[in-house]
């Protein structure tokens, strides 16, 4: 069964609604959101609440639920 979640863009506060299948991975969500917002290639992470979500986890593994709000955060890699 699909669920609908909101992805928040940490860089500008805008939101995106995404419909997800149980087997969709966190990495798929990151790529989909980055593509939607035309983000430059770069490292990103996704959080739910105080938890940083593992890239290979599926929607099911991560226990994502309908109406969850996730945040896409750029992972700064400069020195």
């Amino acid at each position, binding site marked *: 069964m699909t669920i609908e979640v909101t992805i928040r863009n940490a860089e500008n506060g805008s939101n995106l609604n995404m419909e997800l299948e149980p087997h969709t991975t966190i990495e798929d969500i990151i*790529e989909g959101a980055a593509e939607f917002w035309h983000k430059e290639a770069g*490292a*990103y992470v996704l959080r739910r609440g105080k938890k940083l979500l593992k*890239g*290979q986890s599926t929607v099911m593994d991560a226990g994502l639920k309908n109406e969850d709000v996730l945040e896409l955060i750029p*992972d700064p890699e400069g020195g």
Partner: protein
Amino acid sequence: MAQPGGDDRWDRSRRLGWIDVDSVLESHCLVVGAGALGNETVKNLALSGVGKVTLVDMDHVELSNLNRCLFFSDRDASGKAAKADVVAQGAMRLSSHCEVLPFVSRIEETDLDWTGFDVVFGCLDNIKARLHLNSHSRHHRVPYVDAGTDGSRGKIQVVRREGPCLQCSMNRSHYQVLERRFSCTAGDFTYYEPPMAAEVTTTATMAAMQVKEGLKILSGREDGCIRDVMFYDAMSNESLVLELDIDEDCPNHGM
């Protein structure tokens, strides 16, 4: 009239109470990267009393580094001085107690004796080198404090002897830019164009937080460290500490 403790270089540090000054004075830290973060991190370590720092960086100073690197000068840029050498000399001028051993090479090609390090600090600009440092720190069971910046954003991750490591926090988006350097002066990496925005207030903030975490570890206060990753945004004044699980597929665990 002289103030109490005025003739003890570490008097004000001792007054903090939580810092184990004697452990810090005897400690040996590895810092990899002598760019903007590395300048600030080594400065903070030297002023905090760390006895010995091994510093690794393969790069030379460029004029565009001078908006954020306190030890670099125009002369270093025109003379293409090695960053590690310049930072080592500068830090030893700040503290006669601190010995800084510079290695002008890539971390992947540097033969180090890992048994002597108390804390490792990552001040790097690419994910490949970070993963190298992460796996070696895990293997040798040395705590690793990684920092990263991008413009007004920054990140600190504390990799303890147990618990999740840097690789556990990574996903496909990291591996797609694995070898890209996020600042560029030399080398055979794929360059990032245009160069990333960077300024001293963000790098100085992140380096201060990074060294604070290191001082907690050196002082036996590991329980007070960031668990596990902190993201900072200077423009919104927000910082966010996120927990992370060990990735059961991560090769750095169960050894």
